[in-house]
């Protein structure tokens, strides 16, 4: 992690590599959701309209599969990134769920309801961000596996009975709604509408966070960086 000396009061939170991973994930997931929903809601005007935009049922499938290739590429790269790069591995270690996360959640709720004392001193990733990461991990793994089975239907049919095939198709459709909720209801609230960050948390584009915000939202990390002499002064 580079110290935010040059910019004075900002530190780098996400490297360009990480921001690109996020951007590709975002674009591919949005495309997948749109092309997927046009099939899921083919009976409604919105589905018919989207299908028309996407060049009919074949065009839709083509776009959906290419976006899936991008998604799988990003996921595959991400695994290599956390396994084989020092930076990536460190990030992953910060994301490990701890019992403290549950306590933090309870403390924040108490705080919001007026029974609270201090805001918990979050480390690099707080419980919301960890939830987001693992929820998306599970959801995209489900989507990729069921999606591949449906994509390579002819091959899957040799090993799979029809009922399991049907089940995967339903699973793929339902899980997409979960992903939609996770991203468009939860994640977008979290990074746009949350009073603390409104109108947007810019770090996904700039990769930087101000020292003031770091101290507010990730106190433990701030303290750690200060002790390590990586932040000069702070406030």
């Amino acid at each position, binding site marked *: 992690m580079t110290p935010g000396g040059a910019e004075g009061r900002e530190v780098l939170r996400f490297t360009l590599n990480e921001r690109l991973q996020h951007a590709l994930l975002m674009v591919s997931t949005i495309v997948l959701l749109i092309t997927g929903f046009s*099939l899921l809601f*083919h009976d409604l005007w919105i589905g018919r309209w989207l*299908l028309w935009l996407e060049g*009919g*049922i*074949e065009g839709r499938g083509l776009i959906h599969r290419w976006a899936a290739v991008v998604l799988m590429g990003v996921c595959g790269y991400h695994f290599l990134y956390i396994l084989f790069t020092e930076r990536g591995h460190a990030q992953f270690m910060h994301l490990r769920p701890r019992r403290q996360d549950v306590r933090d959640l309870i403390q*924040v*709720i108490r*705080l*919001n*309801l*007026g029974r*609270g004392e*201090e*805001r918990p001193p979050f480390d690099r990733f707080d419980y919301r961000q960890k939830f987001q990461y693992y929820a998306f991990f599970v959801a995209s793994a489900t989507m990729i596996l069921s999606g591949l089975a449906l994509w390579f*239907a*002819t*091959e*899957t*049919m*040799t*090993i*799979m*009975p*029809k*009922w*399991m*095939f*049907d*089940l995967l*198709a*339903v*699973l793929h459709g*339902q*899980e997409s*709604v*979960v992903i939609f*909720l*996770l991203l468009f*209801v*939860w994640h977008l*609230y979290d990074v746009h*509408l*949350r*009073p*603390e960050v409104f109108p947007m948390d810019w770090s996904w584009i700039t990769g930087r966070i101000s020292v003031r915000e770091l101290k*507010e939202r990730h106190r433990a990390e701030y303290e750690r960086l200060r002790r390590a002499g990586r932040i000069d002064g702070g406030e």
Partner: protein
Amino acid sequence: MATLSGCITVLLLSARAAGVTAKGHSTGLSDRACLRCHGDPALAKAKPGERARTTYVNRAVLARSRHAKVACGECHTRIGKHPHDKHPHEVKLPRAECAACHRREARAYAGSIHGRGLAKADTDVPTCQRCHGGHDIVQVRGPASRIQPLRQARICMECHADTRITARHPDMPNVLLIRAYADSVHGRAMAKSGLAVAPTCTSCHGTHDLKPADDPRSPVHRKNLAETCGRCHQGILAEFRDSVHGTALAQGVPDAPTCTGCHGEHTIAAPADPSSRVAPRNIPRTCGSCHSAEGIVGTYGLASKRGETYAESVHGIAVKFGNVEAANCASCHGFHDVQPSSDPRSRIAKANLPATCGKCHPGAGAKFAEGRVHIEKTKQSAPGVFYVRRFYTWFIGILIVCFLAYMTVEIYGYRRRRKQAGPGPEGEG
């Protein structure tokens, strides 16, 4: 008025005409005598206020006709029964008599819908001449014939597509229905490709003995239709007779489909034509018109919700949005040879499923055939799908509640802190 040229023609023709008369009916008049007056082109002009029915006979046309050697009196049988002082015959001559020679056709005609109309003195019904022509009559199959296959539909439509005539006869078929033939695969084969073997009106409906379609003797009556189509489509007739639809039809099941049930009548189009009722995209609707009709499904104990369960399948969606390769009803069930799944010959019999699915999905084996295809996904029939759906219903519901609850609490806390802190820049707990 006898012109000079007229006289010459009469002279040229008279020898042969007189000869025929000699061996034909005794009319007392030679053809030469008839043509002396009726060969005058001035007769072709109708007098003002009179119906333009001419008594003019074009010698050249007559000479080229099939009846060139038939004497006038053989058709116009009433000639000669009247004294010839002023006019050689009564002024209003009855219709030319064809029955004397064409006895079989006349009998058939008398029993036809047209013949019965004529018996009721209906002036709109076609008589022999209306279709065959008069003095210009030529061999039916000859290239110049009015009712030669390529031209015949036009003759029928002169009346059947004439709304003035159909207005007088409410039981006549709808004009649009009749006109649709022109755009049908049969009509186009005839008009565009010039295929004289393509069916025209009479090929299916009959000729002199033409009957309405609801008459059991009509070749297009439900009972006879398959045989009528099968006169050309022989191989298909054999397949159809053996199918579940064909056997039901033979048993007299009133809702069993015959050819037109799926293919349409005058609108019939080739399966590759997107307008066809049996085009890939339209097949689900065509089959569904019976197999999704509660009355029919209920009456015959057919499997229910065929159309709906297909429509929500990946095949159904693909076909609905214009993919012609995805499976439609006929891809798996067959069409002319359709059989119930309980029949071992059926393409969807358990043993045949791997081969049937394998047409498109070469990997589909016996393992794949274990599951049931387009069933209503209930707890009993598809427990896996049922429980996955149920899980997600709850999961998604709980997720929404949790998210909204968390957001509400967070925004509530933020506002509360802001109020406590007063008009400050940031509400810190």
